[in-house]
């Protein structure tokens, strides 16, 4: 009996070890050299961030992926980047109008989707962040978000049982530094490239559009594309899109950054890729669905008195126009990107 018991325990141990080993080796989570190759999609401009001084490697990318999904970056280790940047929502925050931080705190703006970031020269709704690498400092240190200091993040990672080894694999030694944290996150987020939607395939001639989608594209080009410029669906500028300022949030937008009065109430023109997944909409998440968005843009009487001139070139939109635009916007959903295994939470393995 005694021997049997030992054998049973041994077998359990063996099976667990095998399972663990399998999980470790699960190819689903492995990142190859090819996985981190930067491929500029056909028709896309030259990227602004070129991974100069931050050469792409599987190990650095894997470290960035782990940090992105690890709540250790927040003050009370409850909130990770991925808490608000959900893969299923093109790394936006599904169904949340405003960002959520530690201790149930609510931020002032809607979580932007993370995609095609290397074509942006500034980040955040107000463009306050001037480089992809320093972007994570903002949510990490924001008292309404992760409320943590970078110095404390470093000491937590240094004391962690696994991270020093991860840093060694990525950078050659176990030193944990802000530069390494930021560069690995830049590799992970910088490779979030969406360029294989039905729209892209239609443009490349490998897919077809319905009549409604075609009309929607034409309407979009006539009325929206001046700001939401193809193929990134943003011209990376800041504009007042006519929204009446929220009296509770009192958000001056771009003006907070530049201190220039005429920049008040301007916000970054967001890219529209995967828009089907990134509700709610606008910098303050005030519109729950695309119908509300299209209704707003369809009539200048909704606009504030400082709306950008382009806003007045949109409307009026008929119900049929809105339906066609809606059909077109759904073609921007990129399942290749949304289900890309490279971006899956590594803690799931």
């Amino acid at each position, binding site marked *: 009996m005694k021997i049997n018991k030992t054998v049973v325990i041994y077998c359990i141990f063996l099976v667990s070890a095998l399972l663990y080993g399998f999980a470790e080796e699960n190819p689903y989570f492995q990142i190859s050299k090819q996985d981190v190759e930067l491929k500029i999609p056909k028709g896309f401009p030259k990227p602004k961030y070129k991974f100069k*001084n*931050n050469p792409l490697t599987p190990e650095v990318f894997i470290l960035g992926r782990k940090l992105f999904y690890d709540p250790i970056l927040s003050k009370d280790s409850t909130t990770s980047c991925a808490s608000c940047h959900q893969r299923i929502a093109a790394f936006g925050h599904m169904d949340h109008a405003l960002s959520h931080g530690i201790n149930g705190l609510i931020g002032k703006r809607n979580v932007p989707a993370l995609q095609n970031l290397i074509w942006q020269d500034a980040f*955040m709704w107000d463009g*306050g*962040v*001037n*480089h*992809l*690498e*320093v972007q994570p*400092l*903002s949510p*990490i*240190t*924001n008292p309404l978000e992760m409320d943590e200091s*970078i*110095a404390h993040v*470093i000491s937590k990672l240094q004391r962690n049982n696994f991270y020093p080894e991860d840093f060694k694999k990525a950078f050659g030694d176990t030193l944990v*530094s*802000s*530069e390494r944290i*930021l*560069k690995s996150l*830049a590799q992970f987020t910088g490779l979030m490239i969406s360029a294989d939607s039905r729209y892209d395939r239609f443009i490349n001639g490998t897919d077809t559009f319905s009549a409604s989608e075609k009309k929607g594209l034409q309407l979009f080009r006539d009325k929206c594309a001046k700001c939401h410029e193809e193929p990134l669906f943003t011209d990376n500028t800041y504009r007042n899109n006519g929204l009446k300022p929220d009296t509770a949030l009192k958000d001056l937008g771009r003006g*907070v*950054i*530049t*201190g*220039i009065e005429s920049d008040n109430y301007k916000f970054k023109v967001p890219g529209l890729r995967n828009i089907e997944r990134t509700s709610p909409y606008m910098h303050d998440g005030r519109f729950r669905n695309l119908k509300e968005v299209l209704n707003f843009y369809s009539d200048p009487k909704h606009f504030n008195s400082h709306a950008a001139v382009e806003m007045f070139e949109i409307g009026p939109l008929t119900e049929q126009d809105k339906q066609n635009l809606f059909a077109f916007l759904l073609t921007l959903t990129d399942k290749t990107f949304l289900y890309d295994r490279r971006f899956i939470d590594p803690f799931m393995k």
Partner: protein
Amino acid sequence: MATLWVAMSFRPAKTLENSLCLFFEHYVGDRVLQMDTVTYKNELGQAYTITKFKYYISNIRLHRAGESDVAINEYYFLNEEEEPTKKISLQGLPSGIYTGIDFMIGVDSLHNCSGAQSGALDPINGMFWAWNSGYIFLKLEGSSPSSHSTGNRFEFHIGGYKPPYNCIRFVSLSFLQPLRLNGDHEVHLKTDIAEFFKDPETIDFSKISSVTDFHNAPMIADNYKDMFSVISIK
């Protein structure tokens, strides 16, 4: 480790074994700065104490008589609380007759837009604005009974590299007498915090006790750009 860029059309066959050590000595008027304990008075007679004083020095250029300038492409983060940071050691200088020094207070626009950086420019130093990317060039904090802020505190975090709120300031100082560099030498510089609060703008703590973004920042930078002077050369 200072990287030397010797901007000259010809390279003299002289050994680069000389050094120049810059000592930044912090004063308030004619008194050596004592943080926390000693009370000073501004132009309006308002009492104040200093609790924090840190700043960046960069883009150092040394002038030589009849020869090209020596440029040092390095950033230095000086902190009153850490004595060694107030000493900038410039090694491997070419010999010659040195007549003066230029430097920048702060961080140039390129280094404000260069992403993740290490050393003096590591954001761990608490001199980086995360929400509006860029370095704080100079931090001065303290308290004054005249300040209406919480705890009668005042805090001045001055930075910003974009017009019209550019706070980058240049300092140009002549040595009192030309220094023939031959071996190891020292230049002692005075950093006078009293200048921070006056000329051209007298700071009234009851009106201004906090500058932590572009508001009023260029005005303060104009005040403190004159805070440096040469005390002695050895």
